[in-house]
């Protein structure tokens, strides 16, 4: 962040930095993979107690109601010290959606559990045949009295094998046009009939899962919004998700890699390496500047250009990690981080992981289509 900070902001930054230095356990620093719940939840709860787990949530729901500047300060300090990535589906996705569309009962039950780390969430959207074309999904939910009986197959479910609950889209009405007849529902993953299979990724981690539903009986009270009315919610959620996908947190973590490599290289970095470092710094500064312009709670009228932010954030991160690969030289393909002069340097893991950024949360191709359509209002055509 380049702008002049107010005294309050400076004080907040000092507080965050000191607190992180004092509180973040050594074994959670400089991890490249998201630590598993058993390892991470203690820290999650510590942040929760401190009141910093949900900077972007309104105070009314137990969040910080933090300004974009405060959010960026938290992200910058977390990147600097190498704080781990934590489960985000609850905080960034289903949390905000329940705040907007949930019943008071649903809010009361689920929001505190997200904040204090009692429940880890995952997202059940994609299916083998339905990726970018989400509305073609085929997992069925049959209404039977007070229950909805779900049968189907979700895939690419991030952290599905670690999660306690899933929020899913199921087709509850086959008669209606594709985008109608879809219901948004909350499902306890302990229910009978659910099986999960982790999927290894390009980055050699189990980030994904397949989730199979075999006549899983879910209380109808778990429907968010109205039956058959899930599409509007998912559209809203995608926007919500994209804003958080547009946060510079990943890019800042990536930049920290580049900075550490540059430091390790010292004078060997040379003129062309310095140019690359400066490029990385500039790209992340631009992304951060763009994120700082997302509307605050006080500016409800302005709709953020969430698709642009998602593209900018993910492609900036990827570009910065490309630079990291360049600076890594012969060490670029090393699998595990290595310690160099007391600093841990990750060479390839974040780079490999980052390939997913432009795929998930609506591929960047889908985002470009949305921008052409909604922002630029370009004409729709007859044929490709």
């Amino acid at each position, binding site marked *: *962040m*380049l*702008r*002049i900070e107010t005294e309050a902001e400076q004080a907040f930054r000092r507080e965050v930095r000191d607190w992180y230095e004092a509180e973040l356990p050594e074994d959670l620093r400089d991890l490249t993979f998201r630590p598993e719940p058993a390892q991470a939840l203690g820290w999650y709860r510590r942040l929760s107690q401190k009141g910093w787990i949900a900077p972007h949530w309104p105070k009314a729901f137990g969040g910080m109601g933090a300004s974009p500047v405060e959010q960026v300060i938290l992200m910058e300090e977390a990147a600097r010290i190498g704080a781990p990535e934590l489960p985000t589906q609850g905080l960034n996705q289903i949390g905000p959606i329940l705040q907007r569309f949930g019943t008071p009962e649903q809010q009361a039950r689920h929001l505190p559990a997200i904040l204090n780390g009692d429940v880890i969430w995952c997202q059940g959207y994609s299916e083998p045949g339905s990726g970018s074309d989400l509305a073609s999904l085929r997992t069925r939910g049959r209404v039977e009295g007070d229950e909805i009986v779900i049968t189907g197959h979700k895939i690419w479910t991030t952290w599905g094998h670690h999660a306690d609950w899933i929020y899913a889209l199921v087709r509850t009405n086959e008669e209606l046009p594709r985008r109608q007849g879809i219901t948004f529902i909350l499902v306890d993953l302990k229910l009978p009939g659910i099986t999960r299979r982790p999927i290894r990724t390009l980055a050699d981690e189990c980030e994904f899962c397949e989730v199979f539903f075999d006549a899983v009986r879910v209380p109808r009270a778990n429907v968010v919004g109205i039956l058959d009315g899930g599409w509007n919610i998912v559209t809203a959620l995608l926007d919500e998700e994209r804003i958080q996908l547009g946060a510079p947190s990943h890019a800042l973590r990536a930049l920290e890699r580049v900075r550490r490599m540059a430091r390790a290289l010292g004078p060997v970095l040379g*003129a062309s*390496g*310095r*140019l690359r*470092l*400066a*490029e990385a*710094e*500039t*790209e992340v*500064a*631009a*992304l*951060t*500047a*763009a994120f*700082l*312009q997302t509307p605050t709670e006080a500016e409800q009228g302005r709709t953020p*250009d969430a*698709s*642009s932010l998602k*593209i*900018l954030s993910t492609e900036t991160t990827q570009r910065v990690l490309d630079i990291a690969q360049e600076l890594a030289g012969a060490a670029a393909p090393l699998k595990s981080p290595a310690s160099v002069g007391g600093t841990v340097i990750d060479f390839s893991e974040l780079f490999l992981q980052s390939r997913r950024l432009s795929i998930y949360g609506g591929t960047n*191709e889908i*985002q*470009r*289509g949305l*921008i*052409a359509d909604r*922002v*630029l*209002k*370009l*004409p*729709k*055509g*007859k044929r*490709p």
Partner: protein
Amino acid sequence: MIAPTPEQVLMRDSLIQLLGDGVSRMRGADGGPPDRAVWVDICEAGWPGLLLPEASGGWGGTAIDMVMVLEGAAATLAPEPLIAALATAPLLAACGTEPAHALLANMLAGQTVVLPAEMAISPLAPDGGFVLFDAPWADVAVIGAGQGDGFRLVALSSAEMEDAPLRRTIDGGAQRILSLAAGAGRLLAEGPKAAQAFYATRDLLRLGAAASLVGLVARAFALTVEYLGMRSQFGQPIGAFQALQHRAASMHVAHAAAWALVCEAALAVGGDKERVACAMAKAKASATARGVLKDCVQMHGAIGFSDEYVLAPLFRRAVTLASAFGTPEACLAELGCEG
């Protein structure tokens, strides 16, 4: 996007009205002596005082004001040296010497055009030379050289510039590469404080150029989106072709990022990160302008390559401005050295 305040909108629009359609003046110039009529109007309206404190007869404007105004003004393609004037006034005011004070007064009155020359490297001056952009406008060139106590800020008169050849630039302007003989010019200020003021002006030049570049991008892109909706081939508007849609979306994102960074840099002026932020903003805006303008020409097809359409002068101005007041590469290289 950071939206301008209603006050900033008023300021910007009044300047745009004053500048009118700058294209004909830009085309007409072609390296020769400029027509100063519009410039005198600009000075009489008080614009060069935008960043001066009200106590010094200025408007007490902020860097954000400057950015908002220049972003809008750029699209007029007016050839007048606005960026340089806005950034140079605070420098002359900061000198605190009689010659500088007199120069400022003449400048604000529209009588004397004072432009800063910038140390820059090129194949024409591999060891560096003081490049004076918009040279035909300059009655006086301001040059800063030396370090610390040895820093000297001097003013060269137009007679002292004549030896350096005038070289035309593709936007209708021209530049000279000045050299500074020992003892040449009139001393305006010296020492570390003068150096500080000089570098602050360099930051403003970069920020102003960055804002202008983003303004050029905005206009060229708006024209392109309009053209995509209007021009039909193969029985439909070309804007319906997905390959062009996706590229247009990328251009939109690039513009938004550059503009965000320019606004952010304006919020950094006066702080610790001013230097870094202005260099970044200039680098990013220049690179974005180079990239987006090329795509705008491409998407227009042959008409984009014709000089009879406004895209060509927008393109040439963007190329010119991208390399003025610090090329992107020079700005980034500086960052790398300090970082």
